[in-house]
């Protein structure tokens, strides 16, 4: 690894580590170079990384294939392509397990396999994905029966209809006349239309146990995973959980249904959703089979409790059609981001500091005396906490001068306030750093103890096999003792435990990051 890594921001470091772990050292190095330098030509990257041209080309191909790198003709010389990284897409590698889980939750395991294959390849035609998924599923079930791919084709269409997968941009027709091909953005309505496919040839290939698909009709229509749609879905999970926490599970269910309606009414991402009428929501609840009976019975109450809630999960925008309901994502995510900041302040500085932090936020501007009186904290402690919070950038100070005379002392007030976007950015940066640390620690632990872990896995495998052969227990114990010492075993257990914790920690840090990022995104959205 290069010696100047510390110059990268925590976010870029996370991207670098993710690429490194997912694609390997070579791709990781090219990715890092692009992260650091921005737009680069092929030869710049070669000189920057000191790798062979062939390696760089291969690495770029992989990254382009996974939609992490794009290219375009250079402004200075249209014959040279410049490559640039899309950091968010690199970051999304972290969310792949969540993507799979989400799809499994919504649809089922065959859709999960489709997405998994697509994520593995990066981009592929529908036939290709279906063929490979069918192969994978056939491996899992017994060999005699062969899976019918038309069910997978339907699943694929479902995924496209719900926008979880999206068509890649086409290469322009005259691309090969020019030196740098141009990518042609598809029209909005074309992006999610799956071409008509014949499943019979694929089924035939599957029966013949072929491993390659070969020529197929839709090889020009390439698909990839739609990160934006997954972001929305993951965000919605957070919102539904929020509704469930604030009221109860049935409210979460209702909110889930309403979110769906909002998405149908306004598929484009906006600060506020379009209004949805009361009757429409009621219809959706009625059609929702297997929902909570409580929800149906007290539908109006649930709706009212939700829109009267202070987290602004639902806001009433009009009275037509029994009431129009919308959501202002900027407000909701402001509340969620505040809740995140609150818990950070609480854990880092304690409940009294939290009191001061929230009081200041509620009052907009507040002076020291008022603060200690309202928060009921002794003057000395109040000062200590507020200065501490200020030192760590959670509070800011605004000085108000009374009078403008040049002579004599000027009376001034120092008012505390919270600059929310700034505090959110601070905590976001902290979250990226925590995430980076967790990944770095995990990678380090697993590579430093690689031999030991491999030995342990080998031993476990062997013991498992022997156990199947009804070997007596004392012999097994002897064997296990002779291959590994107790100290080694406890070390392995410790590493595994920490590694599990770290994996969990990464996914949790990602959730915090998603909330904070969403807040910033909607807050500054026009």
């Amino acid at each position: 690894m290069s010696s100047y890594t510390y110059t990268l921001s925590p976010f870029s470091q996370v991207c670098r580590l993710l690429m490194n772990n997912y694609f390997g050292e070579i791709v990781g190095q090219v990715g890092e170079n692009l992260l650091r330098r921005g737009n680069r030509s092929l030869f710049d990257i070669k000189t920057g990384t000191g790798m062979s041209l062939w390696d760089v080309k291969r690495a770029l191909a992989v990254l382009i294939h996974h939609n992490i790198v794009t290219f375009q003709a250079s402004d200075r010389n249209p014959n040279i392509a410049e490559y640039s990284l899309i950091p968010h897409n690199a970051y999304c590698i972290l969310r792949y397990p969540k993507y799979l889980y989400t799809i499994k939750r919504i649809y089922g395991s065959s859709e999960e396999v489709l997405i998994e294959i697509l994520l593995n390849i990066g981009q592929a035609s529908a036939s290709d994905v279906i063929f490979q998924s069918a192969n994978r599923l056939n491996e899992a079930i017994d060999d005699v029966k062969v899976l019918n791919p038309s069910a997978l084709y339907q699943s694929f269409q479902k995924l496209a209809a719900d926008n979880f997968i999206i068509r890649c941009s086409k290469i322009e027709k005259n691309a090969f006349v020019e030196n740098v091909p141009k990518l042609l953005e598809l029209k909005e309505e074309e992006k999610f239309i799956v071409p008509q496919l014949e499943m019979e040839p694929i089924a035939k290939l599957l029966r013949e146990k072929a491993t390659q698909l070969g020529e197929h009709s839709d090889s020009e229509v390439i698909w990839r995973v739609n990160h934006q749609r997954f972001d929305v879905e993951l965000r919605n999970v957070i919102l539904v959980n929020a509704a469930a926490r604030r009221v109860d599970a049935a409210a979460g269910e209702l909110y889930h249904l309403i979110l769906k309606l909002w998405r149908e009414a306004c598929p484009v991402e906006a600060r506020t959703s379009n209004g949805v009428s009361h009757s429409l929501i009621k219809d959706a609840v009625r059609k929702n089979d297997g929902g909570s009976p409580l929800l149906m019975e007290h539908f109006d109450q649930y709706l009212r409790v939700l829109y009267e809630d202070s987290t602004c999960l639902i806001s009433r925008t009009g009275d037509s059609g029994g009431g129009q309901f919308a959501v202002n994502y900027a407000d909701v995510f402001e509340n969620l981001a505040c809740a995140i900041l609150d818990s950070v302040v609480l854990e880092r500085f304690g409940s009294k500091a939290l009191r001061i932090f929230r009081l200041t936020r509620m009052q907009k501007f507040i002076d020291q005396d008022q603060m200690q009186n309202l928060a009921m904290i002794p003057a000395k402690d109040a000062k200590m906490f507020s200065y501490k919070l200020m030192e760590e950038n959670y509070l800011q100070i605004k000085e108000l001068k009374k009078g403008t005379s040049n002579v004599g002392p000027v009376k001034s007030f120092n008012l505390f306030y919270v600059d929310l976007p700034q505090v959110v950015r601070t905590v976001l940066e902290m979250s990226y750093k925590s995430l980076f640390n967790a990944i770095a620690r995990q990678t380090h632990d697993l590579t430093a103890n690689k031999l030991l872990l491999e030995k342990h896995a080998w031993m476990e495998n062997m013991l498992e096999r022997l156990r199947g052969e009804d070997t007596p227990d004392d012999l097994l114990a002897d064997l296990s003792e002779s291959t590994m010492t107790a100290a080694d075993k406890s070390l392995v257990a410790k590493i595994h435990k920490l590694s599990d914790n770290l994996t969990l920690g990464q996914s949790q840090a990602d959730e915090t990051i998603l909330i904070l990022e969403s807040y910033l995104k909607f807050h500054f959205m026009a």
Partner: protein
Amino acid sequence: MAGLAAVNIKKEKIDEPRPSVSTVNDDGRSEAEIEARMLELLHQFPKGISNQILDTDMPTVDKQIKVTILNKLMSKEKVSMFKAAGTQELFWCLKSHPTSRIKGADNEERVVLGLIEEAGNKGIWTKDIRIKSSLSQATLNKVLKALEGKKVIKSVSSVSAAKKKVYMLFNLQPDRSITGGSWYSDNEFESELVDLLNHQCYRMLLQKAEVAKQKQNDGPFTVRNSSFLSSKEICQVISDLKIVKFNLTVEDIETILDTLVFEGKVEKSTTSDGNCDGQVKTYRTVEKPVSSASIVRMPCGVCPVMKKCGNVGAIQPKDCNYYGEWDD
């Protein structure tokens, strides 16, 4: 005196010729009788009486006589005259502690006492007395000591500045801004008491919310509404618990409940109660919309040396002790 805060304090004698003392009125009452009636009225309206009140009470009495009697009362320092801030109307008000009551007071003492009396229960600082009375420091100290010895005035030290002593009349209850309200004893903030009440209130609200949750079958509205407790109810229960020695007011408990609001554990809402006397503040516990920020569950979230951590240097994630001790 607090009711007169908005009033221009300005004493002025009305220059009217004094009619002879022995005048008897049309309705046959003597001046002494009218004076007694006036004092009665003054007692009845502690905020002061205006000319209008006098006119309706004794329409037959001549204006001249009323003026005379009022002037007499003022010269006896039993009554003071004020001008209402907006209407410029004159009104009279009983002097609560006529300084003349103190026997054997000399002029200096009287001036100082006047200043202290004017300051009311907010008290007045020695330096301000000195400037206003233009007495020398030595004399003033002597006077103050003498007055304190007579138990006419007392010195109170303020919570905002421990060394700043203020003087006020002996029988006055110091203002909240001086004593800091119920939560101070001997100028010390009772932070343990506040914390205790804070926990107690929270526990009460939690219990109420637990009970409310059992009514889930009646719909979320019922659950929400029955998880509310009004500040009055909480005040009643806490008073009955006898945790505090003094008389706990609803305002006191509301300040405690507000601290819970600032901690984000509780939400405040106002409803009107049945007795049409306005709004009642009610409180209920709320869940945070997100479970505690996930990053604080990692060692990094609460790491004290986060800023010094990096890929190089003494603190690195790969051999961080906090990770080593992390057991969830």
